[in-house]
């Protein structure tokens, strides 16, 4: 299935029950501002703050270069400073969480054509243009450039099974960056929300509410999305051979059968319903020792997204309160956050929400 604007609307409506509305340049889907924020972060779809280069969250909220390592990329943190947290972004761009958003899929062949359509939308709309998020559909590209959209769909479907999910996950330089990761962490269960996108953990302060689901077993998923080619086996095998993951997931809207008997498939049927076809073979790729180390790292990884509910000043105050000395390096930050428990972090977040400060 090649996803065009019409199919985009149907997929979102049929699978998630989202409301469809008319806009001056075609139909759009209504999302609450939290989900819209996650949508932008995963797909790169931009808020229409200008017609040339709409603002997207994608890439702003990343954390580490690689798994099993604690070296920051410039994203959530910039050196030792909390930088692009959703809370900071919300202060800088009030429109992000001010109201519901409409995702409009816009087909185009050239960039100038797209810019012209967006200028028309801005001119014709009575609502603030930043209420619109533009989903690019590049009909000149094979697959229409819709792989990030498939990553979004995968996140939305898989998280309901009790996973913390994310796209473009850190792994290693040599293995590359898988398109999708799903983490069921039994030791985090009932303490922090699961059935959640990783970035949503940073939205607690902004009012997002997410449920807790008990999980008895760790289960780690890795996925790779394709819309323009069916060649995915080699990449998935590479990820599975790391010994870190229990299951590989092929993500492809056009396939009916997975590339191999030992990987699962997420696809879209002719009825626009997302289907997950579980692997036929229960092949065990896990190296228990390596996976254990990865899970330990993931348990810490998640903490930073919780910490991102704090402002930088609050974080500094929190650090000072516990350690009694100022932050002098990234290693200080890493050592501090890794030692915190989830309960301590969540209690701190609740404290600043109630008291407005670190006590």
């Amino acid at each position, binding site marked *: 299935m090649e996803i065009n604007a019409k199919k985009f609307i149907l997929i979102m409506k049929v699978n998630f029950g989202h409301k469809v509305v008319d806009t001056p340049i075609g139909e759009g889907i209504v999302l609450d501002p939290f989900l819209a924020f996650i949508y932008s972060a995963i797909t*790169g779809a931009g808020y229409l703050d*200008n*017609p*040339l*280069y709409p*603002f997207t969250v*994608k*890439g*702003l909220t*990343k954390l580490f270069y690689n798994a099993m390592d604690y070296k920051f*990329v*410039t*994203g959530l943190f910039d050196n030792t400073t909390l930088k692009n947290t959703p809370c900071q972004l919300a202060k800088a761009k009030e429109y992000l969480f001010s109201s519901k958003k409409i995702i409009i899929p816009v087909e185009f062949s*050239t*960039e*100038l054509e797209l810019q012209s359509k967006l200028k028309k939308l801005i001119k014709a709309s009575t609502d603030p243009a930043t209420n619109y998020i533009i989903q*690019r559909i*590049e009909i000149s590209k094979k697959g229409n*450039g819709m792989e990030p959209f498939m990553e979004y769909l995968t996140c939305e479907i898989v998280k309901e099974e009790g996973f913390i999910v994310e796209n*473009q996950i850190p792994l290693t330089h040599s293995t590359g*960056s898988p398109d999708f990761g799903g983490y069921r962490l039994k030791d985090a269960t009932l303490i922090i929300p699961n059935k959640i996108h990783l970035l949503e953990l940073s939205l607690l302060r902004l009012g997002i509410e997410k449920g807790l689901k008990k999980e008895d077993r760790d289960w780690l998923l890795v996925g790779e999305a394709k819309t323009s080619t069916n060649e995915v086996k080699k990449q998935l095998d590479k990820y599975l051979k790391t010994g870190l993951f229990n299951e590989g997931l092929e993500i492809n809207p056009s396939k009916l059968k997975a590339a191999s008997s030992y990987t699962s498939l997420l696809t879209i049927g002719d009825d626009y319903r997302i289907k997950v076809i579980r692997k036929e073979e229960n092949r065990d790729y896990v190296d228990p020792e390596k996976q254990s180390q990865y899970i330990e790292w993931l348990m810490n990884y998640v903490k930073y997204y919780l910490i991102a509910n704090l402002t930088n000043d609050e974080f500094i105050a929190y650090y000072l309160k516990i350690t009694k000395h100022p932050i002098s390096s990234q290693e200080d930050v890493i050592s501090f956050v890794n030692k915190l428990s989830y309960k301590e972090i969540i209690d701190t977040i609740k404290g600043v929400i109630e008291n407005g400060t670190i006590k």
Partner: protein
Amino acid sequence: MAQSSDEIVKREIIDKIGVEFNGLQLMVFPESSDADQIPFGDEGGLTFGVNGTLYGSCDACWVIKQPWKNPYNNKIVQYTPVVALEGTDALNRGSSGNAQYQRFHHALGAVKAGLIGVYYLRKGVHKIQEDLYGMAFNATQVEKGTYLIIDNLDELKLLLSVIHDGSELKDFIEQKMKSMQHVFKEKFDRIYGNWGKFGEERSTLIYDKYVIKYSGRMRRNFTDGSQRAGHIAVGEMFLTKYYFPGKHVFYLWPKMTQGDVDYLDAHKMDDKEWRILRNEDGVSIVTIDDLENVPLVVKKELKQIADEPLKGDALRVFNRDVDIIVNGLRRGIIVLKSQLGKNIN
């Protein structure tokens, strides 16, 4: 993946200057698009050049609605580009040395086409190499347009605000040129003092009518897309060209043969960087095969390390053999044949 350098720069431009400013319209395209890669025209494009040779793509361009004849392909287009900008966050990403040169040629295309080209290096952990200021200053003296190196967008905004005012623009450019020349000269005088010392330190032999710049380039630098050495080669070529205006530049790659160059000509003529190296006025690529009287043992050793990155033993061998070649050239024992077959030493 975290935001790329280009994404950060483009977003910063939009936030600081907006999509329209002082009668100028901004042209910019998303990271995921390749609309910037085509020649500037009515379908988009942020790549400039002259006489059929394109230089790298820029990140942003300010235009006015007025017909313009593109000197790359002589096509008349609806918009006149006024300022073209190539931006980078390299100073925050580990680029402390000659890696900073690798995008110099992107804005150079606009300068050759007669525009104001800007190379914007966001302030960061590392400083801007003073060489860049010298390259831009000298390029402005010999090319049709103006080349500016900046590290903050306030300066860009000021440029755009005076762009329509002839005398204010002239003042701005003169001041900027003085400042760039000063930065370059101060470092040059401090580190080298004279061109002879520069040549010794910077792998350059200087003669009356030409210079020979030598480096350890290998074929793989231009065939392996993951390598930036090809880009850096272009940067170093332009550094040499603009430091020695009026002299012919022989860019000597002793690890490479004429066969390597022929291979690249046959397979990489669509590659912008290779095309620039091969077509730039006043520049000739020369290899070990263009040298006469090189000791056989030197030729053999260089052949053995032809595909080796320059580190460890390969670096030791290269340095030793290049010393022999350079001393030979200085003494007139080793001779560089011109591309026309005449001895030119």
